[in-house]
């Protein structure tokens, strides 16, 4: 369960990225977060993960009060999340396999679990034969899929994805969406930031539209804005 109450975020340089947002996402929901470039979508994601502390307001994520969380609680909260970052954030010095095993280790998985889980997840994103490559040896879309695999590998209860399809071709994008919907149907909460009007329109899901740091629409189905496809 995700609950933002009157959240505001002003960056150190004075940019008012979020200007009062209240938003509830129930457990098991599937939500698209859309809006123009610079509207504050990534900022919301970073507030949910505890990477940013809001200037005002309250944030609850899976039972943790993120806005006031302690250093000891933060790792426990983050283990409930699987995050796909807009800029991937892969470790260049580790292979694809090690990029994944490393985050399983970090939450205390046993070597046996790791050996079982990683090939399965790599299969899901279609990178089984790239396991021993380094991120620098991958195409942009392949890197993005490693980032997706990493978010899935610890079986999180909530998946948060920032532009997961920005570098994927239409076929792969659709595949990924279907995968996330399947995971959602198994019980996980899914929040996806995207620009892809096609995808948003294709699925009748909740769409929250942000502009200028405010929610300007919250409805089921239909990409708001985007004149070219209007």
């Amino acid at each position, binding site marked *: 369960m995700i609950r933002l109450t009157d959240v505001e975020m002003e960056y150190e340089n004075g940019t008012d990225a979020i200007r009062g947002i209240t938003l509830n996402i129930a457990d098991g929901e599937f939500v698209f977060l859309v809006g123009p470039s610079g509207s504050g979508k990534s900022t919301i994601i970073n507030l949910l*993960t505890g*990477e940013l502390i809001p200037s005002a307001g309250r944030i609850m994520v899976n039972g943790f009060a993120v806005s006031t969380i302690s*250093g000891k609680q933060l*790792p*426990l*909260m*983050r*283990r409930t*999340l699987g*995050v796909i970052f807009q800029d991937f*954030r892969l*470790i260049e*010095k580790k292979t694809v396999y090690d990029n994944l095993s*490393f*985050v399983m*280790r*970090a*939450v*205390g998985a*046993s*070597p046996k679990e790791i050996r079982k889980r990683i090939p399965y997840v790599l299969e899901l994103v279609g990178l089984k034969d790239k396991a021993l490559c380094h991120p620098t040896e991958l195409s942009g879309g392949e890197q993005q899929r490693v980032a997706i695999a*990493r978010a899935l590998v*610890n079986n999180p209860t909530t998946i948060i994805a920032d532009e997961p399809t920005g570098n994927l071709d239409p076929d792969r994008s659709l595949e990924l969406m279907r995968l996330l919907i399947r995971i959602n149907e198994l019980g996980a909460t899914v929040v996806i930031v995207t620009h892809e009007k096609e995808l948003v329109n294709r699925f009748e899901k909740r769409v929250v539209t942000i502009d200028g740091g405010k929610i300007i629409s919250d409805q089921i189905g239909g990409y708001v804005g985007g004149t070219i496809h209007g």
Partner: protein
Amino acid sequence: MAKHNIGYFFREGMSNMFSHGFMSFAAIGITVACLLIMGTFSLVAVNADAQLKTLESENEVLAFVNEDYTEDQAKGLQSELENLSNVASVQYISKEDAMASFQAQYPDEQMFQNNLKPEIFRDRYAVHLKDLHLTKETVAALKDVEGIDDVNAYEEISNGFITVRNIATVVCVALILILFVVSIFIISNTIKLTTFDRREEIAIMRMVGATNGFIRWPFVYEGFMLGLLGAVISFFLQWALYEAVARGVATNDTLQLIHIVSFEQLWVPVAAVFGGTGILIGVGGSLSAIRKFLKA
């Protein structure tokens, strides 16, 4: 901490060390350089100190016996002198012995060799002191002894000697301290630089819910391994260097006189100091380097 984690941390630390090849090489190389410089100075200082101690023990004060005393009376003073505080030992030197040693000192003054008579010398005691710093007080005490006429304290000499030794000690200790501080500064900076490009990695670990403890361990292991490796390499290099110098000294005609402390007597403290310093610097450097990334 689960059992399989210990192995993981260790392997992780090792593989980090190798995957950051150049960085690790630099850190180890610098550790070795610093330890060697420090070690070499310390060992030179130890030897110089040993040498000085030997010389110091040869330093003596002469106490001249009243000319009117007979030889027996003169000898009778021995126990009284020995009982003075700060007197390590006394040695009686008769007029005849004094003349002989005097003649030995001046082989070139032909006249001394034939024309001298023991009577022109005085009976004397060579007095060895426990603590040269107290020479003044001891000379006064010797002079107070009934039957001792005069004391040749070589006071300026022993004073100068002590001063030189003190200065040498201070200079050595100061140099070693400076080198130690400089070494720590250099090595911990090196480790900081080497961990600088790991902030990304740390950020990701934090993001997926790793605890600070979990993040810290591989770095601690890496620092430990770097420091230990540096220490081990330094130790063997230091050993080789020391033996080479010692052999050089032993085979040199003039230098033979210098007594070199054998490495067997020194290797335990050298190993301990090298190992301790290396590990301390390695682990400390690693911890201080990642500390700021763990805060935010």
